[in-house]
């Protein structure tokens, strides 16, 4: 019988060697200074990522999903935001303890990021070849002909037609889908262990999006890279992800493998998010909707942040309890609160306030 302490906090028990996590995030906390005071944009976020795995981080705007990504990359907008605690362990090193110079060598080589808007991610005054080559030059020390060949190689890998010609083009000469592929090429150029993709397809058309997602899968299968997919779209989760973490108000409220999340979600917010999306394969009639608005971080309720929007009945006392993320079944984690988990009583013995 394991103790409660072991169940709370991920990674307390070490997994077997072959599926040992390559990225291990524990109790990550990032705060942002605003005119209303300091808010916790990322609040006690913990998760593991295995080799070749895709983890979807899902949430609405302001849920902290992008800040989590930026915190892992140590790219939070400073000085307004700062990482105040936790660990980000990649290949056995805590990224939060590295110096800025060491971190520069990690970014792009060990962990890289694919950004949402390819027009903003690319510099309009440099050629594609120059921008793809920059990462390769810095991390692999290539220059001249070998660098050029490598750039063309990488562009070929993301299936850009006529890569030699495109490498001499400027970003505005490419279509949106091609530009996003270039951003992808920069991301994979140094064969990182982890790629963080922050809504890479939201600005793309559906057919281009489908092609891009397929390309990411192919690259993943080939290189065994682990991907963190930041998205608000459960369609992308269904198509791409092995595991899902749902974020709300800076915290992970439910985390499980993708089938569990879709078939047996426990948290009311997860249920509502999945139910409120129109189904492309059949018409479901009136959509179930989540009433209210996503919470403002400076006006968070003291306990369960989802309580004001929850359809369940609960007392004020329950709402004031700050819920814990608990492993209710093997690798199914839920933030247990009477306000937002209908089956709370079934798992109440797992928490002290139950």
């Amino acid at each position, binding site marked *: 019988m394991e103790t409660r302490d072991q169940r709370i906090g991920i990674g307390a028990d070490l997994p077997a060697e072959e599926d040992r996590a390559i990225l291990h995030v524990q109790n990550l906390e990032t705060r942002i200074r605003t005119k209303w005071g300091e808010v916790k944009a990322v609040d006690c976020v913990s998760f593991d990522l295995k080799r070749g795995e895709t983890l979807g981080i899902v949430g609405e705007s302001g849920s902290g999903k992008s800040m989590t990504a930026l915190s892992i990359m140590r790219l939070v907008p400073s000085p307004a935001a700062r990482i105040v605690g936790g660990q980000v362990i990649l290949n056995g090193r805590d990224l939060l303890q590295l110096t800025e110079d060491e971190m520069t060598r990690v970014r792009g080589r060990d962990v890289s990021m694919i950004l949402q808007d390819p027009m903003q991610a690319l510099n309009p005054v440099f050629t594609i070849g120059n921008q793809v080559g920059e990462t390769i030059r810095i991390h692999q020390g290539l220059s001249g002909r070998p660098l050029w060949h490598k750039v063309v190689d990488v562009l070929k890998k993301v299936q850009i037609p006529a890569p030699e010609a495109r490498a001499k083009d400027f970003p505005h000469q490419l279509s949106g889908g091609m530009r996003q592929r270039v951003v992808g090429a920069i991301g994979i150029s140094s064969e990182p262990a982890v790629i963080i993709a922050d809504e890479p397809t939201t600005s793309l058309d559906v057919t281009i999006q489908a092609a891009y997602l397929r390309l990411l899968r192919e690259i993943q299968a080939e290189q065994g890279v682990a991907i963190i997919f930041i998205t608000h779209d459960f369609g992308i989760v269904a198509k791409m992800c092995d595991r899902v973490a749902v974020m709300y108000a800076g915290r992970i409220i439910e985390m499980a493998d993708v089938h569990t999340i879709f078939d047996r979600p426990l948290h009311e917010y997860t249920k509502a*998010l999945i139910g409120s999306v129109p189904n492309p394969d059949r018409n479901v009639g009136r*959509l179930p909707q989540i009433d209210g608005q996503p919470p403002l971080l400076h006006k968070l309720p003291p306990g369960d942040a989802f309580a004001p929007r929850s359809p369940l009945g609960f007392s004020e006392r329950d709402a004031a309890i700050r819920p814990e993320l608990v492993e209710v079944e093997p690798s199914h984690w839920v933030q247990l609160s009477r306000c937002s988990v209908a089956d709370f009583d079934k798992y109440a013995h797992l928490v002290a306030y139950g």
Partner: protein
Amino acid sequence: MADPRATFELQSNVPAAPGIAASADAVIQVRHLRKWYQIGTPWFGVGAKSYLKAVDDVSFDLGRGQTFGLVGESGCGKTTTLKLILQLEQLSDGCIYFEGQNVATLSPAGRRAFKRSVQAVFQDPWASLNPRMRIGDIIAEPLEIATTMGRSEIKRRVGNLLTEVGLHPYQANLYPHEFSGGQRQRIGIARALGPNPKVIALDEPVSALDVSIRAQILNLLMDLQKEHDLAYLMVSHNLATVRHMCQSMAVMYLGVVQETGNTQAIFDNPMHLYTKALMSASLPAHPDITHDEILLPGEVVSPIDPPSGDVFMTRTPLPVDPNHRWARERPPLIEKEPGHWVVDTPWSLARAQH
């Protein structure tokens, strides 16, 4: 042709066109709509005229209280069609009939009535509300311009409109930045509802919103439609939303309707390869749902000087016979089953499915 104003049997004056199911009660009927932008001008006989054919021969009927969906990738002309109907762009050719009357031949008073009856809700709720105006003034503006209401009457109406879209009348004194995206979209809907329109053009009304808010807005739109017998003309690239909202729809590619008719019929039995490609690219609602992906080679071609034959010719994965009739002239829409029309060429249909 008789002057539409000369007779009371107005509906009969609207010519039939392929791709239109006989509807007795149409609010807006569009016939052979064209919008060509001239982009090349011969200079002393040097160079040739070239046209960007944004919309090329689009016809459809929008029934009272119904929703018609326009689907396609960016650049397919769906938004231009909307702008033409809203009179924000000049027609190059074709006719728009409002309740059986040709809009081009309306008297100035009739034109004003038409503009009052056709309102719009835009995609981006951040860009479509003036940040310097109070919400009350934003909603009141069309009432001041287009109606004869007095000041106190307008104030009362603004309060009622805000209640109707789920906001509070006291919020009329606030500015747009004080609202979240979903609330802003509600304000946009209230503004459109103000002059008691018969038709509201919805240009991607939920694509800029958070997933949990989308269901709220879609439900609100459907409730308002029932209550006011509104007709919606909806532009979207999200097939799930279209299936959820629209009774009939048209799939556009390069300014040309490729498949049109009853939404249910099209989703049950998509015939055109382009429709199938769009459907196969749409994201699944569950991880177990896998679509056979239909890949179209290349990306959307430029609408500048499209082929004189079938526009889909350059995108189809099937072999194209350059001597075929439809490689040289524009193929018509053919009614393949009741209320389901499609462009039928040897290379545009997915035959293996039948």
